[in-house]
């Protein structure tokens, strides 16, 4: 019991919670935007790999860190354009296209990695984002190091949540986007293009997913490894459902998930961790995601036109 208390009062634990949440916040917001507009984006897992690779590769080739983030966003938006082209105007199955995009984006990243570094066993490291303590706030006990001594990308992740929430609920653009996912016929009646809104949403959302991937190689770590995304994308899809398609709730869910994930990592290092196989701890995040889906299943307000292709003239 004292061990649990020790974990909960340590500043480094809470810093880890925020660090684990950051890439998931970007990707969850990205998926949320897509689904709010009516498009399920199963490309998320592969797009995160592509973002992780593209951002890291750009910086390794000499680009600045923020340029790397922008390139990751661009790479994600390009795969988003592919996904959107196939699923929106052509109305192809969002499941099939999404899984195809995941495979394509993942293998494209691995292929490019092998071309750039043919014989390398340990990938080169980059000068990643460093912690940027906010003067004054960073000195608050426990909270300070956890919240205000993170890298600039973490601050950007939380800012992204705020911006997404504001745009979706406080602007005409956000209203049109949500309407495209609820009642596309009404959007078309307003003279707006459902196709355009949905495609734009998928591109921006995919860009955010890729930035989430880039967080892994440019802030959490400083190198690109195969399998490093490791199911985080699928977890984010569960988090969107858990958050009932609302940015604030989804962000809270992400923090809760990160809390449990950081907690299981710490627990592995205690006496309990010596007795219990480590795989049990590693399973917890996935089991928690499944549990979250079950808990929310009754109450979820799914966007009415999610996964329903829009064809003009059809009702």
């Amino acid at each position, binding site marked *: 019991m004292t061990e649990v208390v020790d974990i909960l009062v340590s500043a480094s634990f809470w810093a880890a919670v925020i660090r684990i949440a950051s890439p998931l916040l970007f990707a969850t917001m990205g998926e949320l935007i897509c689904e709010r507009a009516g498009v*399920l984006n*199963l490309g998320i897992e592969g797009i995160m790999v592509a973002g992780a690779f593209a951002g890291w590769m750009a910086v390794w080739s000499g680009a600045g860190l923020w340029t790397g983030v922008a390139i990751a966003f661009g790479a994600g938006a390009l795969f988003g354009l*592919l996904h959107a082209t*196939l699923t929106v*105007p*052509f*109305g*192809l*199955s969002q*499941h*099939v*296209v999404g*899984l*195809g*995009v995941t*495979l*394509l984006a*993942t*293998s*494209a990243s*691995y*292929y490019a990695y*092998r*071309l750039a570094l*043919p014989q390398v066993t340990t990938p080169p490291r980059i000068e990643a984002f460093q912690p940027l303590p906010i003067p004054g706030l960073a000195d608050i006990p426990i909270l300070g190091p956890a919240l205000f001594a993170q890298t600039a990308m973490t601050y950007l992740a939380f800012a992204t949540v705020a911006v997404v929430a504001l745009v979706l609920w406080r602007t005409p653009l956000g209203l049109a986007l949500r309407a495209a996912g609820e009642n596309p016929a009404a959007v078309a009646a307003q003279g707006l293009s459902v*196709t355009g809104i949905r495609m734009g949403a998928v591109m921006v959302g995919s860009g955010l997913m890729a930035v989430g991937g880039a967080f892994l190689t440019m802030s959490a770590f400083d190198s690109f490894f195969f399998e490093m995304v*490791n*199911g985080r994308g*699928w*977890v984010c*899809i*569960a988090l969107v*459902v858990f958050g009932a398609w609302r940015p604030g709730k989804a962000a809270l869910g992400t923090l809760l998930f990160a809390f449990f994930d950081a907690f299981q990592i710490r627990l592995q290092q205690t006496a309990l961790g010596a007795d219990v*196989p480590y*795989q*049990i701890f*590693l*399973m917890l995040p*996935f*089991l928690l*995601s*499944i549990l979250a*889906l*079950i808990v929310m*299943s*009754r109450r979820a307000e799914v966007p009415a036109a999610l996964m329903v292709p829009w*064809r*003009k*003239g059809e009702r």
Partner: protein
Amino acid sequence: MRLEPIAAPGLARTLGFPALAILATFAVGAGLALAAGAEPFSVFGLILQGAAGSRFAILETLNRATPLIFTGLAVAVAFRARLWNIGAEAQLYAGATITVVLGTGLLLWPAAALLPVIAAAAALAGALVLLVPALLKTKLGVDEVVTTLLFNFVMLLFVSMLLEGPLKDPMGMGWPQSARLIPEARLPRIVEGLRLHWGFGLGLIAAAVVWVIQTRTTLGYAMRAVGENRQAAEFAGIPVTRVILITALISGGLAGLAGFSEVAGLRGNLTTTLSPGFGYTGIIVAMLALLHPFGVVAAAVFVAGIFVGADSMSRAAGVPTYIADMLVATALLAMVLAILLTRFRLRRS
């Protein structure tokens, strides 16, 4: 822009767009080869040679196709009823795990009794693994796409735990691998001296059985009806929930057999590297086959050929093997688009 259905598509359209999709896949492959500094046609030639250039190459391709036939069928059966089973990987590992639990000395029976029992147990294990998400879907409305995906990760960790615990081979020099199957639990080879095992034959039988179920039984009709329009099926008196659950059992069972066939036919033991994503590749196989069971066999051989051919090409030409994954992904996306364009045309509105 809008899609306009074509009443009677001509032959040029029906064949032209799929041909274009194949051409587009080759074009992407050529670009990738050029990016690696290799000559495209020699790369294609080496892939073809590696996949089908010798008796050894052909048997290797058929061996690699075997698990894909099972996972492809598993996905085809499920998708036909709109049950999105993305968890064939987990079901495969469940089947493989039961195979080593029963086949490493627990049951000391002659092969004629042992093999059918293990195969049935493997199918049952795979079926039960998919039954959980299927029940969550039908009883609670939990989306099965995400749950089956997440179960893949849980299952692989579970297998890893077993291989470092109760299933660990005491003679394995500390490696996380199971003991080897007893000879009676091994699937024999189809032709003595050649590597191709009876798992491939079992795959062909499975495809035929699925075809019979889908086209010659009431259950097959009900599965199709549920897939095409759930409300209409319900209205017509089809027990939708039960059909979905039966579909899940068949689909999961087929994927479980993939694990049995790989362990009993090829590997002889279980490791966490048993499947390099056969469950996920099965989705591509099923889609390329347009969910038709015999198409699955052809698509599995085609996809396996690309992977086997790319392996041997990579050794000779130095182009990374990931070109195979990219070719397969491109073929999938290009083909689903091409099939759509055989029936619709895009009009500016």
